[in-house]
């Protein structure tokens, strides 16, 4: 097996692993606790409750797990910060907002493997001595709400949740909180505002949520997929876990693939699998055997890449070297027939719609970019529009309150960098 040179010289470990995050999901009753327990579910919880909380945090640190919500922050380090803060109570929030266009990787866990997430959250709660957890679930997943609430009730009835978790005298309560259609609420501080019943506008950092989060108390926010990795780390141990996938960001990774491939869907693969393998091996290649034009590798906010970049391993270390980001692992594939100017316009229209309005460069600048793209796209672009577009984007970069505005600017800059001629062809 060739491919993927990881950082530090060790090749990406491509040993085909059994499914961890998507284990069992073909089973029609996969969301039911009995089936989950039958295949080893909640064993990691029993094991974790025999450990000291600080040992669990060390284990997560040593595992090398990095957050799967987009930024790739080391999970163990985040937990250690929160653990070091003595304020009480502490809260664990699961980010199930999954709003990044192209992303649908958390949905199978939420709808088909909810106990994996719940088990991960109980272990995290114990490790951090947090007694309350909330799953912030996007409003667009109404079925997942019912499934999660049923699963929480089952876990409660089994004694895994509540006032006396597993008979160990530990308290952990878990609730689902439904968002209502605001992408920005996936940003962690906006999520907290929203959970507090306010408009979902980001907060200034510092203070960071690990010190002053929900109700000004220490708060750990992790993505669904991040938390779903925790039981497995406890089960097999940090050392074995660190052997999976890319050396500097190990573990199984969910890639959600959409667009012009023969078999789109969510794939659980070792971190660091190349885009080529994902697109051509796992997804069966380009629909209708057309030519590949471009890929957005990590959700709409991540820089678009031309077809010749697909040998890059999909992980937090290698994607930035190739000029993009792993983001949420949402691979959007475009064949040779796609009008990329239109794609860029639609993407920026999304950001305009989702800008929370708090800061001017984003609120106004993204609207200007949309207006310029709209006229280029419909054939009424003017000479100089492409440079104007780039200039506006440069005036957004680095000047916004949260990464949403920056992300929008980056989208435009990278479409223009790799596919400028397509924009030029539209301006007569």
């Amino acid at each position, binding site marked *: 097996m060739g491919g993927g040179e990881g950082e530090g010289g060790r090749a990406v470990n491509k040993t085909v692993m059994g499914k961890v995050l998507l284990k069992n999901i073909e089973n029609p009753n996969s969301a039911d606790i009995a089936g989950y327990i039958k295949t080893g579910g909640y064993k990691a919880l029993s094991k974790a409750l025999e450990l000291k909380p600080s040992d669990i945090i060390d284990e997560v640190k040593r595992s090398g797990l990095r957050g799967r919500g987009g930024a790739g922050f080391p999970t163990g380090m985040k937990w250690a910060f929160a653990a070091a803060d003595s304020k009480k109570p502490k809260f664990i929030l699961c980010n199930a907002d999954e709003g990044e266009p192209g992303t*649908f990787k958390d949905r199978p866990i939420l709808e088909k493997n909810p106990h994996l997430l719940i088990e991960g959250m109980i272990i995290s709660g114990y490790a951090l001595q947090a007694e309350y957890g909330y799953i912030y679930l996007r409003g667009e997943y109404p079925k997942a709400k019912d499934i999660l609430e049923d699963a929480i009730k089952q876990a409660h009835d089994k004694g895994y949740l509540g006032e006396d978790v597993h008979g160990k005298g530990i308290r952990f309560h878990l609730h689902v909180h439904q968002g*209502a259609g605001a*992408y920005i609420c996936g940003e962690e501080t906006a999520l907290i505002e929203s*959970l507090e019943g*306010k408009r979902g506008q980001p907060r200034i950092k510092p203070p960071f949520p690990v010190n002053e989060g929900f109700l000004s108390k220490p708060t750990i926010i992790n993505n669904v997929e991040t938390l779903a990795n925790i039981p497995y780390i406890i089960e097999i141990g940090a050392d074995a876990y660190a052997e999976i996938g890319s050396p500097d960001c190990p573990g199984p990774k969910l890639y959600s693939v959409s667009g012009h491939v023969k078999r789109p869907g969510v794939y659980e693969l070792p971190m660091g699998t190349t885009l080529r393998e994902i697109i051509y091996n796992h997804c069966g290649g380009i629909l209708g055997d057309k030519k590949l034009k471009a890929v957005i590798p990590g959700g*709409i906010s991540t820089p678009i890449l031309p077809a010749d970049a697909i040998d890059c391993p999909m992980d937090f270390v290698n994607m930035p070297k190739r000029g993009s980001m792993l983001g949420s692992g*949402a691979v959007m594939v475009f064949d040779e027939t796609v009008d990329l100017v239109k794609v860029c316009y*639609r993407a920026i229209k999304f950001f305009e719609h989702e800008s929370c309005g708090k800061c001017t460069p984003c609120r106004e600048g993204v609207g200007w970019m949309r207006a310029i793209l709209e006229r280029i796209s419909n054939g009424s672009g003017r000479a100089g529009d492409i440079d104007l577009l780039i200039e506006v984007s440069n005036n957004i970069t680095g000047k916004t309150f949260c990464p949403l505005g920056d992300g929008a600017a980056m989208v435009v800059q990278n479409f223009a960098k790799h596919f400028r001629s397509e924009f030029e062809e539209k301006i007569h």
Partner: protein
Amino acid sequence: MLSENAVKEIGLIRNKYHDVQSSLLPALYVVQREHGWLSPEALKEVGEILNVPKAEVKGVSTFYSMFRHKPMGRHLIQLCTNVACMIMDAERLVDILKSRYGLEPNGTTDDGRFSLIIMECIGACGTAPAMLVDTDFHDNLTEKYIEEILAKYK
């Protein structure tokens, strides 16, 4: 007026949280499920129950695109047109809803059967184009399939 049930449900929701205002979004959902939308009177009542100022309730509810501030049809179609759906021809579906059902984005059919809202990503990109009708997901939509689906919603 909110029903007795709704008021009771909002009371139960309050127990899930350490502070009162955290129950605002869930409370608005309770009302929207019951009435189909959030009228100014309903917003006022929620504010009174939770002891949150009226202006704050309105400011919060209008921030979120899934809260409706005008009456809706019996069934709500939420059709995605974001990039993954767009490249799979979602715009054609918008046209069909217009030409065959007289349904415009943000509009309601004359018979009050359907309302249409254009969505940003609904997390069904692998089976695009996709929509939610009320709380049901429908994906891999085609011109013909969307008509079959809608026929089931009376």
